């Protein structure tokens, strides 16, 4: 059922409503606030999947070059996250979950954040190109533009499908890691990309279900806000069903690229459990305003564990022969 969207706050990228800053003596930016701009917790998943893509590739890479490739992926992800916070500072100020970030809190001014983000992004792409390969650098640059422009600026404020399409940004790290190790794109890293792409909507919509009020307040058209909870729950279920065979696909790939049973069995078990959590969310209704939303929170928590475990199994499969 369509619901009317509340009026959004002033467009992200416009003037920050930081009245508390008026008249205050500007303080220099603290390095810890700059670090917080890079969304370190999100970055840990990016680093992990990028590392797994690099390690699962059939060609070995020199440890120093491997470290550099992961560093570049982390810097690129951090730069893109900082660009996101620079652009969305107004929206962040209006949501409980994000109001404590450095820019809405007035601990960091927008220009510093933008410049910091620009330097991180440019340095990551340049270093990747010079040290590893320009193909990997190009994919890294595309992933940064995809997240900062396609997702943050274009899709997020406009369509409830923002997460579906924008989720592609988070799917790049294993592809970049793989290309850094092999120097070319093949079917396996594309499948890894597709797995994260398919995993993102149920992961994020589970979160959006229990923080729905916040997104509604700032006018972000998240699926639960626009299409309603019932539709969102059904779509979570659909994506979880599709994820089950897709996650096992690397086991059945033709040629030399396919994985072994360690990955295949792990993927089937992990995805079946994921589907189980999704079924609980997909087939229930909110019992009332006091509903603790436990199944949604469990799905969100498990989805993070799921991705870590799935990619760990991919690497284990490469190094453990049975």
């Amino acid at each position, binding site marked *: 059922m369509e619901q009317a969207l509340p009026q959004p706050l002033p467009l992200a990228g416009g003037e920050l409503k930081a009245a508390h800053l008026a008249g205050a003596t500007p*303080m*220099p*930016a*603290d*390095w*810890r*606030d*700059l670090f*917080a701009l890079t969304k370190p917790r999100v970055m840990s998943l990016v680093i992990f999947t990028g590392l797994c893509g690099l390690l699962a590739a059939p060609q070995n890479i*020199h440890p*120093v*070059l491997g470290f*550099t490739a992961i*560093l570049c992926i982390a810097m690129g992800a951090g730069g893109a996250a900082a660009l996101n916070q620079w652009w969305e500072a107004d929206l962040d100020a209006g949501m409980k979950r994000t109001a*404590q970030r*450095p820019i809405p809190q007035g601990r960091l001014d927008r220009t510093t954040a933008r410049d910091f983000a620009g330097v991180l992004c440019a340095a990551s792409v340049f270093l990747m190109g010079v*040290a590893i390969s320009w193909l990997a650098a190009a994919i890294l640059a595309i992933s940064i533009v995809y997240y900062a422009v396609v997702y943050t600026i274009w899709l997020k404020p406009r369509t409830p499908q923002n997460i579906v399409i924008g989720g592609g940004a988070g799917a790049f790290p294993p592809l970049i890691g793989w290309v850094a190790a092999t120097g070319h794109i093949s079917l396996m890293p594309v499948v890894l990309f597709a797995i994260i792409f398919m995993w993102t909507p149920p992961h994020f919509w589970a979160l959006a279900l229990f923080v729905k009020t916040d997104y509604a307040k700032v006018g972000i058209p998240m699926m639960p806000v626009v299409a309603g909870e019932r539709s969102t729950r059904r779509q979570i279920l659909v994506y979880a069903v599709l994820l089950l065979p897709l996650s096992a696909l690397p086991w059945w790939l033709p040629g030399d690229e396919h994985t072994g049973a360690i990955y295949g069995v792990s993927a089937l078990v992990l995805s079946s459990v994921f589907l189980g959590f999704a079924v609980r969310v997909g087939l229930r209704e909110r019992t009332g305003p006091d509903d603790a939303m436990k199944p949604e929170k469990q799905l969100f928590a498990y989805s993070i564990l799921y991705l870590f475990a799935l990619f760990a199994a991919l690497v284990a499969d490469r190094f453990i022969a049975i």
Partner: protein
Amino acid sequence: MPDHKPQTAEQIRRSRNRVLALSLAAFVVLIFFVSIAKMS
């Protein structure tokens, strides 16, 4: 999010400059080792 923020602008600036200096030093070391790795 910082737990223990320095009290003065001077302390914040010093702390940030130390981190910047360490980052630049690490970058130089990294470039050195990348050069060695690419030559090997």
